[in-house]
């Protein structure tokens, strides 16, 4: 696993989408290959063109929260091989 932390090595990242974001993306989950050490923010920038057009609005950093491996995280966190990244639109439970 240490190798996956070296920038430049290939890393499989699982992106998860919820609620409106999942509908915009047309799926709940995407498996993507990136270079290890990519930040979540960069991952988001690269994802935008891949998901449906209406999603671009809702994927903004200031609206969507981020989790890495099911823990709330910051947009400049670096991603490693096997990470699960959750894109969390504004919550509306209760």
């Amino acid at each position, binding site marked *: 696993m240490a190798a996956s932390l070296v920038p430049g090595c290939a890393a499989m990242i699982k992106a998860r989408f919820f609620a409106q974001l999942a*509908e915009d993306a047309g799926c709940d989950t995407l498996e993507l290959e990136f270079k290890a050490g990519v930040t979540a923010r960069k991952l988001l920038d690269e994802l935008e063109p891949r998901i449906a057009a209406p999603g671009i609005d809702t994927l903004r950093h200031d609206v969507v929260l981020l989790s890495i491996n099911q823990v709330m995280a910051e947009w400049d966190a670096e991603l490693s091989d096997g990470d699960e990244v*959750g894109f969390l639109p504004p*919550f*509306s439970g209760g």
Partner: protein
Amino acid sequence: MNVIRIQTDDFDVGAEYDALRQRALGAGAIVQFVGLVRDRYQAGDAEKIDYIELQHYDGMTQRLCEEIVDDAQQRFPFVAATVVHRVGRLSADQQIVLVTVASQHRGNAFNAAQFIMDYLKTRATLWKKEVGSRGEQWVGMKQSDRAAAARWVEPEQIN
């Protein structure tokens, strides 16, 4: 001792009250909140909501709810609490969420229950879709819920 559950099944308010009362003998106050599926988009509105669909991030929600309850207990010491949040499809008038808090005196029980509700609505990985005469739409975070949650933030935490 606190109990937190995320489930599709309905809950029995009387049974949850009795169970909490047993776990909190000696407490002087129990506050119980239940959220129900409203059958209208707005009170008095002709347009009706048929059901809601509650999605969540399985693997995160339980832990986030536990953290919210722990946070409430730090701020407003109480004896015991129960939180049950349902997910899945819930039709109008069904129960969505239960928050029950037992404390020595009523102030902490009221504050903790309100704090937990405000945070459940704004900080837990739960999303609500309303389905009714307006079609299907995911509900964004309400400004009123954002404001309700903001009142618990200490001035030094705002930045």
